[in-house]
């Protein structure tokens, strides 16, 4: 909260005093502030909005604030950093973070072919719009289609720490290409965040001890580390004006979350007085390999933008739980449960299509009005239990630019979720958002 209190007046000061562009000093300062309102209706689901707990009440816990500075101290070298604070339901809480901070050096190879080397914390470039997830001023919709832009992987996809090489290649009549790759790692907060919660869900187990089922849940993580986080993408601006194609991939290995979980004996069964007794043991969740590949096509024709993307993720993981020891309680004998290792593999597939049209035939400011529609389809299959679930969503959004740097937009999204048992639940998400930037 303290960081938010400091950041908001800072943004206002920068905007008001015209410090935003100080070209004479060789640097620029820019920023944006977005505030939203979101309300869920019906059976809200995890992805409803960034893991917010099921709650039909509306909320203003939906904002982003950022400020950046970029400078070119010498030819071919650009350095900069962006600080961001966001609040997305139970995540973020407007704590100040480094969104990106890097130096980039451009190396011209020949006419139409150059390479740049980046070091620091940088955007991954994954899929078409992942880098712009927090930039409401760059799209009509409030939310990106979650089938490709998963809420759970928000912090994981946004940026990486390491080194990146980018290349622009002018292929003449064949258009142009952007080729990029990076090697690095990733920071994951062990105390909060959507990805931390994904790991935490791995501690929720039900263990058969013969006389009933132990239930377990995470107490805390000591650490979450990622040994390697690498990625690459290839984008082709085709000879057809406005048409681009992109393939991008991310790979991580040896991701490990280590901590303590609590195990509780069943409250009914054969254990008599010791029912409900709890004990603690270790939990290690190790993702051996995680892989994502995303394919996309986008076509911009005048005021119409059509896009479609498809993504597939695959991972193998194991959950290692320590031994459980429940001491005897009165006449009830103790329970000893040996430690165990559970292997898991999972594959998901997601896709969407969207169309955005800017109503430029309208007069004045209304010409910035846009409409958007999307259809998402998710499938998650676990080969060990053959369980799969689907999520289908459809959305429509309207955006109105009040002035050049100030806009408001609204979106309605209908969600249908089909669980692995075939049960269907429905939900609605209504959101409003306003953004200004400088």
């Amino acid at each position, binding site marked *: 909260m303290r960081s938010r209190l400091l950041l908001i007046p800072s943004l206002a000061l920068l905007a008001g005093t015209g410090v935003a562009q100080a070209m004479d000093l060789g640097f620029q300062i820019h920023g944006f502030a977005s505030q939203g309102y979101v309300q869920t209706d019906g059976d809200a689901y995890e992805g409803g909005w960034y893991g917010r707990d099921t709650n039909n009440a509306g909320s203003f816990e939906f904002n982003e604030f950022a400020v950046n500075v970029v400078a*070119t101290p010498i*030819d071919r070298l650009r350095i900069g950093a962006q600080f961001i604070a966001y609040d997305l339901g139970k995540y973020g809480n407007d704590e100040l973070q480094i969104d990106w901070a890097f130096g980039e050096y451009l190396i011209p190879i020949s006419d139409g072919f150059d390479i740049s080397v980046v070091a620091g914390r940088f955007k991954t470039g994954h899929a078409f719009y992942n880098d712009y997830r927090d930039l409401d*001023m*760059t799209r009509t919709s409030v939310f990106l289609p979650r089938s490709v832009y998963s809420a759970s992987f928000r912090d994981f996809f946004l940026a990486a720490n390491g080194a990146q090489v980018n290349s622009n290649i002018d292929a003449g009549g064949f258009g142009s290409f952007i080729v990029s790759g990076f090697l690095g790692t990733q920071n994951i907060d062990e105390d909060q965040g959507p990805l931390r919660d994904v790991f935490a869900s791995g501690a929720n187990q039900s263990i058969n001890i013969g006389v009933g089922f132990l239930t377990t849940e995470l107490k805390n993580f000591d650490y979450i580390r990622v040994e390697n986080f690498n990625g690459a993408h290839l984008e082709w601006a085709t000879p057809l004006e406005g048409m681009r194609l992109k393939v991008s991939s991310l790979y991580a290995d040896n991701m490990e979350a280590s901590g303590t979980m609590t195990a509780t004996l069943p409250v009914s069964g054969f254990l008599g007085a010791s029912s409900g007794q709890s004990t603690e043991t270790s939990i290690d969740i190790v993702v051996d390999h995680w892989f994502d590949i995303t394919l996309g096509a986008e076509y911009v024709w005048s005021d119409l933008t059509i896009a479609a993307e498809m993504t597939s993720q695959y991972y193998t993981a194991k959950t290692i739980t320590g031994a459980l020891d429940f001491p005897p309680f009165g006449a009830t004998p103790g329970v000893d449960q040996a430690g165990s290792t559970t292997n898991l593999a999972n594959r998901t597939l997601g896709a969407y299509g969207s169309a955005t049209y800017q109503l430029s035939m309208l007069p004045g400011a209304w010409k910035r009005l846009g409409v958007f529609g999307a259809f998402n389809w998710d499938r998650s299959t676990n080969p060990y239990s053959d369980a799969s679930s689907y999520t289908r969503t459809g959305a429509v959004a309207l955006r109105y630019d009040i002035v050049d740097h100030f806009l408001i937009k609204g979106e309605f999204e209908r969600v249908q979720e089909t669980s692995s048992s075939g049960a269907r639940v429905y939900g609605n998400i209504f959101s409003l958002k306003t953004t200004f930037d400088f």
Partner: protein
Amino acid sequence: MRIPLLIALVSLVAVSASTAMAEETVILNGASAVAGLSEDDLKDYYLGKKSSWPDGSKVVVVVLKEGASHENLLSKLGKSNSQFTTGWKKLVFTGKGAMPEQVGSEDDLVAFVAKTPGSIGFVDAAKAKEGVKAVPVK
């Protein structure tokens, strides 16, 4: 009486022709070594795909806030004003570019290019003056 009328008509036609033939040109800082640009170069520089000139010096893009010359530039780039602005915001907020300088008049644009090494602008050709060089786009 006929002669003044003829002169007036000729003058009117000349002015009309001059207005109709007003053409914009790309101008660079006078010290630039660049002799000409291709249409792809123009798009690359104005859309932020290239941030350095061939000699390694940085590109400083300057644009008009509005007006016929700006509209014609956008037409050459194949972008609407909002597409142009959004493209730059994507670069600025991911650390991959510096926002173009915006000026209110063609005279201001020419003056900015004249004093700023590495700058590129697009103005009415008649506005180009000392300190800037007009370069052809082929």
